[in-house]
């Protein structure tokens, strides 16, 4: 168990409301994102997150610290979410097709460079990276992220914004490693395209 966990746990057990409010606010955004991958509406996702925290409070005294506190909380979350959840059967449509417009590449029958970039199709040069921090660009990215299909958004947001690793995301969203990568790829490719369009 992390030192920070021991500290937080002691405070929670002692009834420190500020400490509880702090982890609720810090972890709930990622928890809502996980929940949304299992259920249809934001309202239901919110119920799932609330129910999770209630479950956490109930089990707090029995928590033995064999896992990290956050891992433990998220495990409870996934169980609650699954209970509320729908079973997914819409994987295929979301994962089919190329992520870059085929018109940007030469044909299969091109005598010289089949399926290589056309001159007019090459990726547009974008600003160097410090510009990534510009508020304007962040806004564009945040909007595009919100518009991704739900599971692409869930994977990209948990991986890139919340910094979870691939294995955690697979467990939380019930994905195989391959599907997790496909969703990450499609999501990032879409966001790259939005960035490129903003640059050109």
């Amino acid at each position: 168990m992390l030192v920070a966990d021991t500290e937080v746990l002691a405070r929670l057990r002692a009834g420190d409301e500020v400490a509880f409010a702090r982890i609720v606010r810090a972890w709930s955004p990622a928890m809502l994102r996980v929940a949304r991958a299992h259920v249809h509406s934001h309202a239901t996702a919110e119920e799932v997150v609330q129910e999770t925290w209630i479950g956490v409070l109930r089990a707090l005294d029995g928590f033995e610290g064999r896992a990290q506190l956050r891992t433990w909380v998220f495990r409870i979350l996934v169980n609650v979410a699954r209970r509320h959840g729908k079973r997914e059967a819409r994987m295929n449509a979301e994962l089919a097709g190329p992520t870059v417009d085929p018109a940007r590449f030469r044909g299969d029958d091109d005598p010289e460079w089949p399926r290589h970039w056309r001159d007019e199709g090459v990726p547009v040069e974008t600003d160097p990276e410090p510009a990534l921090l510009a508020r304007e660009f962040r806004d564009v990215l945040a909007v595009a992220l919100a518009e991704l299909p739900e599971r692409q958004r869930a994977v990209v947001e948990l991986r890139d914004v919340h910094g979870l690793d691939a294995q955690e995301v697979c467990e939380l969203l019930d994905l195989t490693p391959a599907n997790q990568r496909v969703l990450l790829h499609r999501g990032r490719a879409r966001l790259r395209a939005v960035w490129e369009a903003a640059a050109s």
Partner: protein
Amino acid sequence: MTPRDIACQELVELVTEYLEGALPPDEVAAVDRHLADCDSCLRYLRQMRATGRALSLLPTEQVSETLSEEAVDTLLAAFRRRH
């Protein structure tokens, strides 16, 4: 053995597996070989990587839904009852 030829259109779909370290060694070699000769694909790869990095710099509250204040209040009340 010389790595196989990869077309740009194929490479752009391998980028994430490449960045995630999920490609087998012979495929990594094929991607590396292509990238050594193709500035456009190298640019594409860098942009994909930069996209992930840019996302990591976004403030969480800008992109994520947050729990409603009402829900937080309910939880705090439950917390107080516990003690």
